[in-house]
């Protein structure tokens, strides 16, 4: 049990795919203009990651090594198609506002990276813990960025007005704001890492 918790928290903080590993960045900046988009994208991504990791770790001994990459791509593309069609059917609004970024889950390096580095070498239970950790690690950063951007850029949170329209800062809703907020997130994460490392060093 302890092992699974360690795997799970690993993705949440220590090896957070966005803040530490710096993979799968594209979607994270483009969709985070609104919190609802951030949540939707995070959950879609977690679903694809979880299902692909389960399936691939189940079949890891059957998939021939030399053609594993194409097989992985087909599996990931299948689940991405499922998510894309489901979102088009049940949340058409959300699907429209995220546009091309749902199909782009297929080429998200996080999924390919975890499947290749983890799911193809580990048992199903471990793969599930890893997928949930990585997926939720991705989701919370997405939600964090989108809270800052929606609050400052549009003055709302989940479409509920918090800051009067006259006081919003359009910069955060636009492309430069995405880069800016993300830069701050990474630098905070680095600072926290430095502090915890210094704390451990001091305890010695």
């Amino acid at each position, binding site marked *: 049990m302890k092992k699974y918790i360690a795997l799970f928290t690993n993705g949440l903080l220590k090896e957070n795919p966005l803040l530490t590993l*710096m*993979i*799968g*960045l*594209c*979607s994270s*900046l*483009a969709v985070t203009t609104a919190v609802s988009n951030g949540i939707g994208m995070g959950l879609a991504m977690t679903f694809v990651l979880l299902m692909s990791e389960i399936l691939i770790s189940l079949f890891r001994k059957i998939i021939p090594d030399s053609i594993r*990459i*194409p097989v992985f*791509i*087909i599996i990931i*593309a*299948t689940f*991405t*198609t499922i998510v*894309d*069609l489901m979102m088009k059917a049940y949340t058409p609004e959300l699907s429209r506002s995220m*546009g*091309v970024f749902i*199909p*782009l889950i*297929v*080429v*998200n*390096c996080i999924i*390919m990276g975890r499947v290749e580095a983890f799911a193809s070498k580990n048992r199903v239970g471990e793969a599930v813990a890893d997928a949930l950790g990585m997926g939720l690690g991705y989701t919370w950063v997405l939600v964090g960025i989108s809270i800052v951007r929606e609050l400052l850029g549009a003055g709302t949170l989940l479409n509920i007005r918090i800051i009067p329209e006259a006081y919003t800062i359009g910069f955060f809703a*636009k*492309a*430069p*704001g*995405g*880069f*800016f907020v*993300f*830069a*701050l997130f*990474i*630098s905070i994460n*680095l*600072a926290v890492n430095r502090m915890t490392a210094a704390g451990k060093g001091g305890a010695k």
Partner: protein
Amino acid sequence: MSDLAEIFIKALLIDNVVLMRFLALCPFIGMSTDIKKSVGMGGAVTFVTVLATAVTWPLFKFVLVPFHLEFLQILTFILVIASLVQLVEFYLKKSAPALYSSMGVYLALITTNCAILAVTFDSISNDYTFIQSLVYAVGVAVGFMLSMLLLAGIRERIKIAKIPAFLKGTPILFMSAALLSMAFGGFAGLIK
């Protein structure tokens, strides 16, 4: 003719693929360490993007649409791109070793470059004609190379500049990208 120029300028500057649409950020940050690498990556991306568009557009219009298989778009497009990259790699290795040695390392990374898949999807969803899609693909790819060259140039300066401690490392790259992106925002009025 003017609509082609408009599509090109729009893809190159106004909707710059990296700075305005956040696509292909991984190679943008990872490969822009020096100008030579940026040019190599940019060249390889341009080549594959145009080729991928030239294959996926007819495939969608003449195979998927007539057979009502539009829902297989994601699956077919990514497979086409992945196998195309492989073929190009084999071909270059065999017949143009000099070009391969300068471009080869980047080719493997290109399959997961989201700009390419996005271009093939955009050409379909924007209802571009075949020629328009090709022009769009070139515009996006050159825009990618342009933004990478800009960041590579800035990185050379960052090396010798004094940077606040909390921005050292990757954060300063994203800050530079934010400033570049603001500058590109100025192109927005170029086409009415």
